């Protein structure tokens, strides 16, 4: 596929995503923050459903060697980077998706968050040249590199190659775990609903007594 076609496909995909996220008010930040702070799961359930579909879809195609999985070494930097990101997204009240979507709705705070995401990236690029950590993808080997605090590269396909078990099998196991979490959330929501109804009934009884 030509680079122009790639960019065009990406733009169409992004446009549909932007439209669907805008119309559904989905927010990845809320999916984590609301579950942690308020014990509400509107966005968490959507996140889990998407992850189930993607896990089965990606691992099915990876089983036959199709698709373009991400390929780079991971390690301490992966954890540390997302840790900083997690704090940042809660403070900013938006993640990478919702900053673009909110900016499209006319939210200047989201434009400001985007601007400073760019500034943060540029500042990091200045610091990177001091110690070249984490290693550039061109110097990654796929194997553990402990001096650089990197564990190498592994995904469902590498498991298939090493163990001879199709990648989709691992995908189905992961989807099963995600489904169990989803069902646990549904149970919790039902329990919350029942508790609210009990409290409301008690309040009504208290007034009439």
């Amino acid at each position: 596929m030509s680079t122009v076609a790639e960019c065009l496909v990406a733009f169409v995909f992004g446009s549909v995503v932007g439209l669907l996220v805008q119309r559904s008010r989905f927010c990845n930040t809320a999916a984590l923050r609301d579950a942690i702070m308020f014990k509400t799961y509107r966005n968490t359930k959507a996140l889990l459903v998407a992850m189930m579909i993607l896990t089965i879809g990606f691992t099915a195609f990876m089983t036959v060697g199709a698709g373009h999985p991400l390929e780079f070494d991971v390690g301490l930097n992966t954890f540390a980077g997302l840790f900083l990101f997690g704090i940042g997204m809660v403070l900013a009240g938006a993640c990478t998706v919702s900053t673009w979507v909110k900016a499209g709705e006319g939210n200047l705070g989201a434009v400001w968050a985007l601007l400073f995401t760019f500034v943060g990236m540029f500042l990091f690029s200045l610091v990177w040249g001091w110690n070249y950590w984490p290693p550039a993808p061109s110097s990654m080997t796929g194997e553990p590199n402990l001096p650089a605090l990197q564990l190498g590269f592994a995904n469902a396909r590498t498991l298939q190659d090493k163990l001879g078990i199709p990648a989709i099998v691992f995908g189905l196991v992961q989807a099963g775990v995600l489904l169990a979490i989803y069902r646990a959330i549904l149970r919790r929501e039902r329990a919350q609903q029942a508790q609210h109804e009990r409290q409301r009934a008690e309040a009504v009884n208290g007034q009439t007594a």
Partner: protein
Amino acid sequence: MEFFRKTLDPVLALAAIAVLDIFLFLVVGAWTVGGGETMMTGLIAEVFLGDELMRIPFWNLVFPPQVDYWKIYISLGMFFGAFVGAVLSKEFYWRMPRHASEWLLITIGGLLMGVGIRLAFVCNVSTFFGLSAEMNLGGYLAISGIFAGAWVGSLIYKRILEA
């Protein structure tokens, strides 16, 4: 049109996005945002610094700026799609945080997101909709990191709300 009058169920929206993401995975790669944003940062910096930018090793070795990088167009598409959705549903209007403290939090939050993405090579989208779904070891590291970060961020946010 009903679609622009009522809020869409996020489960339906994300299920549809997931199916489209599988298609994108087959064609170019899974949905991602941080890479496109990094390239935009490089392109913007190039406008100001010109060839001097190449003296910074990161832009020379990791992300040489290029306009025809497909990930940029996912972000621009999201902006465009959201704009169209907001206009057609009459939800587009200029809004901004009212208090200086909100601007400060957004500034710190934005900076942390930018640094975090570059440190990890991934953002929240690749964490949940790319790495984890490909069962990449990095997905589990990233999910642990983002949960821990969101928890710490929520504690800080709670403190600020209560102050």
